[in-house]
């Protein structure tokens, strides 16, 4: 079966600094892909390239057979992107913002309003639908972002830290939503630092460090010993295990 996401020899430079090194990945439809790595590993850069937001890269990237560089608009029609930072024009209300995004996706106003109201209602923002977002908490903005990425019913969803700022109940709800979306046949690329969530919901985990894929497989395949957690595995694979030493050093700074 043809992969829904096909990445071949992807490299990316910021000036002279290479942030992605020859990455090749093939992803099948209907999976949750946990895309993890330390800060600055290149996760968000990969996602931005896949979502057609950055066309300055080397290599071939195809989404559902469409070349991202050649036809980014066709790609954008079938994907949803939920960015890491909840940057919004906060003088707008959620409904106004979603009407804007929906219209730019060529949706009808009635459909946008109906779908956005229902989605926000399920996320507990029914009462704030027409309230300006400048008084919203980070979690509330994150929920609006989530809806903005799903509103047009995309086939592939890129989520960069989607649980950021959400309270515990909302985290549980969003995790369940992700699972249900995949059950409907959608593909979710899920970037996060929350190893526990990634371990629990991902069908496949891809770990990158310094722009290279250092591990790829499901959690059962990746773990070396019974009782290993993804967190432990992450530390081993990214080469940082001296936490005792670092913590001791830090707390010793109180002593002259």
């Amino acid at each position, binding site marked *: 079966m043809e992969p829904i996401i096909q990445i071949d020899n992807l490299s990316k430079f910021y000036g002279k600094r290479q942030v992605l090194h020859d990455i090749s990945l093939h992803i099948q439809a209907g999976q949750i892909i946990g895309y993890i790595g330390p800060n600055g590993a290149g996760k968000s850069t990969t996602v931005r390239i896949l*979502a*057609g*937001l950055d066309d300055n890269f080397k290599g071939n990237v195809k989404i559902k057979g469409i070349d991202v560089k050649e036809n980014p*608009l*066709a790609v*954008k*029609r079938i994907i949803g*992107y939920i*960015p890491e*930072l909840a*940057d*919004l*024009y*906060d*003088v*707008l*209300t959620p*409904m*106004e913002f979603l*009407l*804007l*995004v929906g*219209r*730019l*996706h*060529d949706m009808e106003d009635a459909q946008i309003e109906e779908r956005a109201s229902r989605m926000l209602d399920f996320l507990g923002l*029914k*009462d*704030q*639908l*027409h*309230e*300006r977002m*400048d*008084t919203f908490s980070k979690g509330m903005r994150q929920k609006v972002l989530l809806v*903005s*990425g799903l509103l047009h019913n995309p086939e592939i969803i890129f989520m960069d830290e989607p649980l950021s700022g959400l309270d515990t109940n909302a985290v549980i709800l969003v995790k369940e939503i992700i699972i249900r979306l995949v059950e409907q046949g959608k593909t979710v690329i899920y970037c996060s630092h929350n190893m526990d969530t990634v371990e629990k919901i991902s069908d496949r985990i891809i770990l990158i460090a310094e722009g290279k894929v250092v591990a790829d497989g499901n959690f059962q395949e990746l773990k070396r010993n019974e009782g290993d957690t993804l967190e432990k595995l992450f530390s081993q694979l990214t080469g940082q295990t001296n936490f005792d030493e670092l913590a001791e050093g830090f707390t010793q700074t109180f002593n002259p």
Partner: protein
Amino acid sequence: MNKILLRILRLFDGFWRRIDVNPDHLHTILEVKLKMDGRRKTAFNYQRSAQKKEVKGQDILVMVMMAFMGMGGTFILVFFEHSSSGLFMYLSLWMAILALTLISDFTDVLIDVRDNYILLPRPVGGKTLAVSRILHVLFYLTKLVIPFSIPGLIGVGIKFGPLTVLLLAFLILMSVLMTIFFVNLLYLIMLNLLSPRRFKEIINYFQIIFYAVVFLGYQILPRLIDFKVMEGNNLFTKIYLWPLPSMWLASIWDLFFYQPAQPVIYVMATIGLVTPFLAIYLVGTVLSRNFAQKMFSIGEGGNGTESSPQRKAEQHQRAQSSWATRSAQWFCSNKQERAMYELTWKMTSRSRDFKLKFYPNLIMLPVYFLLIFVFPATRGSDDALQEMQQGNMYLFGFYFSMIILISGLSMLQFSEKYKASWFYRTVPMAQPGLVLTGSFKAIIVKFYLPVYGLITLGSGLFFGWHILDDALLAFFGILAMVTGVAILTHYVLPFTKSWDEASRGGNIGFTLLTLFLAGLFGIFHYAISSFNWLVWGLIPVCALLAMLAMRQYGKTGWRYIIWE
């Protein structure tokens, strides 16, 4: 100035300790607050503070501006033949400036609740916090009062003798107390009547007005002073001025200078003496209690009198059939263009920075027009107005209004939330040109059309309705010109750049080229304006050109769009 004030504060360390205030904490808190004041955007330093880097001497700038206004006031005070009337003018100016400064500038400080997050979790005593807040306000007022009053004190000292210096100082102090009282009262009324957001919006409009007043203060007023008014004119005879607090205070001065006085002067002087003290009592007891609580709810973004979700939904329904939505359907060709039209309409109504930068243009445009074209033409001749009516000066008005269009379009690219523009890249938009035309059309319909309509109306009433053909030709000519230049130079999507970049020049090429071409077209129009058949003939040509240019602009592709 801050250093001097903080050094003076240090002199009272012993006193602070005696009243259970930690002088070191007090000094640290005030030092930081004064530093933050210096970096705040104010009407005085708004343009300069748009740059991210710290601008030194902000305080000095504010003080120089106040001294300048003080000198303007002193000029009136000293040269008014009836000195009490001069003082009335001086105090009115002072109280208006102080009230506007307090509302427009200091509200940000008053509603800043960061104290609660930063200071409250630290081991800082309650008394230290309270004293730091009072002293902060006092320091702020000192920096305004001293530079404003010094020229006046020197002026009256020279003209009326040293004792009057003391009297004026006393009256200025009374005026400060009264102004604080009235501002406090105004706040409380607004807080009770308006939701926190509406309150902030109203404050925003005060800031815009103040920005314009500062501009008018040093650009226009000196040219408008009419020396004839100062000759022997007694303003105390005008009953409609009696309710003004500055009149009550000036009455105290009047009692010293003009005896025997009318009974009404005694009454007003008594009110002037009693009100400030009554004001202190009311501010200290009744008003301050509610005030702190209400202000806190504003800073917290509290709901106060916010409407219910159901009411908001109804408001949303109404908004959907609003003028913005309806006009979007008339002027926009498709969904994406309409979406941007509505976004621009809403953002320009709600973005604080846009309003603060753009709206003063709406005030300054007629002022500049009067200053540059009308005043010079009407001076020196009694029947100058009649002469003007025979000419075609209205053409200057039509072309001058273009500034609204150029500045609106130039400022549209900036936003305090420019990072939110990520969504442009995520949506499947084939023609970003529609984003550009959608927002451009919003600027035309929301700002340019009403201004142009008013100018046409005014010109029609003054010059006669034969100007209609010229109004139409100038309108379409300007539209064609601005859109044409936009096709060549203006490829930045709306709300995608930081205001910091605006201070680095924005799109100067667009502005200069538009002004140049429209200037040329204006000269051509001036030359042919007497040939009515030609003017009427050119109107459909220019309208067609404007339409074609707009269509072409809408076809702008992604490769032309400038992001960085």
